[in-house]
């Protein structure tokens, strides 16, 4: 493989765009990456897929914007391990979130988000982020006994002399829904849902 860097190319701009994103809490962290791979060595996504957090930073520093279309970026699930081990105070986790956001703004990755729509819905129905039902079977397979535990949560809490879990009141739910609508979150969700459902229809 070889590549050519033109005198007018400015690869660093991509990193600077990411650093300037409001989501970035690590100041110049991206630029300080030493490519040591400590993030990759602890990243669960890297262990189980082709995702490589160090490479994410490498490509960002190279100004390689094709990364936005790379399927692998969707394998990070925000465990923040890389964030806590990076010796130079960088956070691939945050960089990943920013990359995904840029991708979404460019209409990329709607199909990935679609799977998570249940989360978004729960903000409107309960004012909290609850695990969407479509994940239940997977979780029960990975965490044996989980479903049983969940079914009997109320009794278990009673036995431990704990109060029933505090859930947001109707009032709060209304308010949160209102905020989500005004800020454009709702419209965004609907757009993603509509585009995916249209695509599903086409396919079927």
């Amino acid at each position: 493989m070889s590549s050519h860097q033109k005198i007018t190319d400015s690869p660093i701009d991509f990193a600077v765009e990411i650093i300037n994103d409001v989501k970035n809490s690590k100041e110049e962290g991206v630029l300080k990456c030493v490519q040591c791979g400590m993030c990759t060595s602890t990243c669960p996504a890297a262990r189980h897929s082709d995702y490589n957090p160090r490479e994410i930073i490498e490509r960002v520093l190279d100004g390689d914007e094709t990364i936005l279309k790379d399927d692998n970026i969707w394998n990070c699930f925000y465990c923040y391990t890389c964030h806590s081990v990076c010796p130079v105070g960088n956070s691939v986790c945050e960089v990943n979130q920013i990359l995904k956001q840029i991708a979404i703004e460019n209409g990329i990755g709607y199909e990935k988000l679609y799977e998570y729509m249940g989360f978004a819905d729960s903000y409107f129905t309960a004012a909290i982020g609850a695990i969407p039902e479509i994940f239940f079977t997977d979780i029960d397979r990975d965490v044996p006994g989980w479903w049983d535990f969940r079914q009997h949560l109320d009794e278990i809490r009673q036995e431990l002399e704990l109060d029933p879990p505090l859930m947001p009141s109707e009032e709060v739910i209304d308010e949160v829904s209102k905020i989500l609508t005004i800020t454009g979150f709702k419209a965004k969700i609907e757009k993603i849902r509509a585009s995916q459902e249209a695509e599903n229809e086409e396919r079927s």
Partner: protein
Amino acid sequence: MRDDLKVGVFLCECGGNIADIVDLDKVREELDVEFIGQFENLCSLNGRKIIRDAIFDHDLDRVVVAACSPISHEKTFQDYVKPLNPYLMDMANIREQCSWVHSDKEKATHKAITLINASIEKVKQSDAVDPIYCQTPDEVAVIGGGIAGMNAALSLAKQGTKVTLIEQSPSIGGHMAKIGKVFSPVKIAEECGMCLLNPILNELVWNENIEVLTNTKVIEAERRAGTYNLILEKSPRYVDTEKCIACGKCAEACEVEVPNDWNDNLSMRKAIYRPFGQSYPESYVIDMDNCTKCSNCVKVCTMRAIKLRGKPERIPLQVGSIVVATGHKLFDMEKRPEYGYTRYDDVITQSELGRITGVNGPTKGKLLKSNGEVPKRVVMIQCVGSRDEKPDGHKYCSKICCTVALKNANIIKHKYPDTDVLICYTDIRTPGMFEKYYKHTQENEVRFLRGRPGEVVKKGDNFIVRTEDTLKGEFVEIEADMVVLSTAMEPSDGTREIADILNVGVTEDGFIKESHPKIKPIATDVQGIFVCGTAHDPKDITDSIMQATAAAAKVNEYNYGGVEIEPFIAEIDTEKCIVCGECIERCKYKSMSVQNDQIYIDPMSCTGCGKCLNGCKQRAITVNGNIDEKIMSTINGVLSKKQEGERMILVFLDNIGYTAADNIGVNRLSYPESIHIIKVISVNRVRPRHIRYALENGADGVFIGEFPGDLMYDEVERKIQRAKDRIAEMGHNPERIAFSKVYIPYFSGLARKFNDFDEKIAELDSSK
């Protein structure tokens, strides 16, 4: 009177550094003085003649040099004005604080005129005074008996200086004694560390100019006119070093076994022990924390050297200078549990590996795991605790651990060619000749993997080291049966302690700070205290020795030259003083004490801040140098040049703030022309009445900066607040006074603050 004094002004073009921006012809026209001349490079040797001739020809009483910053050339021009008294000269800084920070020629020229005028007014208030000379006693204390301290002591002693070498542990030698083999890049070999150390130790022991005090610490220090009065505490050894012949019968008889810290706790020793084979003094010592006082040892000692009772002894010591050589310690591995150090015996540090491979170590030099087998694969992890911004980590590179890892890998390969050694690194740092050693290590079949492991876990009999091979972009799990961690070097506890006791500055990492990292790498920020070895920063033995011998040279330089102190310090009128002692408590710099029933002021530590003045009901204290008057005249000198509609902000800074302000110019940043910086001996000398006077006579704003590390900081901050309150009561806007922190390195921040304050004042002016 002072107004009739004949002042000469010397304008320097500084190559074009000044003349290109400041119109010096205009400056000459505008100033009315006895003599004014313009020259290309005043600081050159010609300058001396030019200035001296003008002083004679025009019979000048005072001189103003308008050139660069006094920080760079005050000493030069104080010398060039001879035969005039050096303190009858003042510098107007029209380079760093004018031509380098402003680009508008007209405004810069006007500002230069203002600054020079301020200097003219100020210098008229100056009187001829003599600097104070202090000759320091030439005895020296070297604190810390590692390789650095030993070399500093030896070098001084050979030059005829009396040295007391103070070591807190029972033996001198420091870390070098336990390293085992040491790297030697030029020979591309590992050499016996003890064999290199021993001749130095012997020479030191036999040198009559050196007194070695082991088990001894400095617990108090007081400085007075170039003399340090130290109080040492010598802990009892319980074994008389004069009588003990180090036969070891006592240790055989002792039944108490404790981990041997000299062997990094990898073996056991008795409660009565000798730290290591070549330790000095050659005598046993009792570790009283573990001794049961059973007296077994006392009974078997034929020399009657052991006494189970003893008390710490206090020893006063007076010296003229001090060398700090208190060394380093290693990063605490409890802070990085992911590497399993505290859980697994076969995860060790490079230091422990050094002990294991050392012939005088726990396994007599055999590389063995805790189960007694030779490891099949040793994985070394670099940069543990170094180059690490995580909590408790160190941002710096520990500098020696790459070479230490190479050394230990080679030692393993020589003896156990079948053991696979893999070094996991981020960068291999082997500058200079050490690069050859790196290549040599590769030829020795030591393997390298570029990646920083995230964790070490145990699986079955082996460890799994998880890392990414970053050159391949591949996550790998490496099986190993021994893991060696290259831990960071950090300042020893003794280094932190002594910094506190001696009041010397430390870096953000806790190492002893040099007074200038580039050109004064051995002096500290306290006169007469020098640093060497790993107490200063991570370094190897060679560099420690070089710095130690340099420290010895610096000490002698200091001893022979004496010290010259600016005379602007407090003085007591013994006629008026009733020795009530009010002032002693007030002085933040601990300069005052009672000696021979009189108040004594230590000229070395008095800063002339004037805090003591307030406390003295007898008005027996004066601070020399007409400082109040000088500040007032400088303010007048600036404000009298104010033009219609010009915004004028007065900025008061002491030496530190002034240096930061100079750095703005040196780095060619800019700030508004309204900023006029006035250098004061201590910010505390700027009084509320100065501020009030300035605001009532044309100043639009007053900005006061102080270094938070200054002992007077809190005091000044409170004082400014009070001044603001007063100003408000009098109907002025307190917003026109600003108080701010200044730091030498953060000059860009200071420039920003100047800009912000100028904008704020502009707003206040326009809303008026």
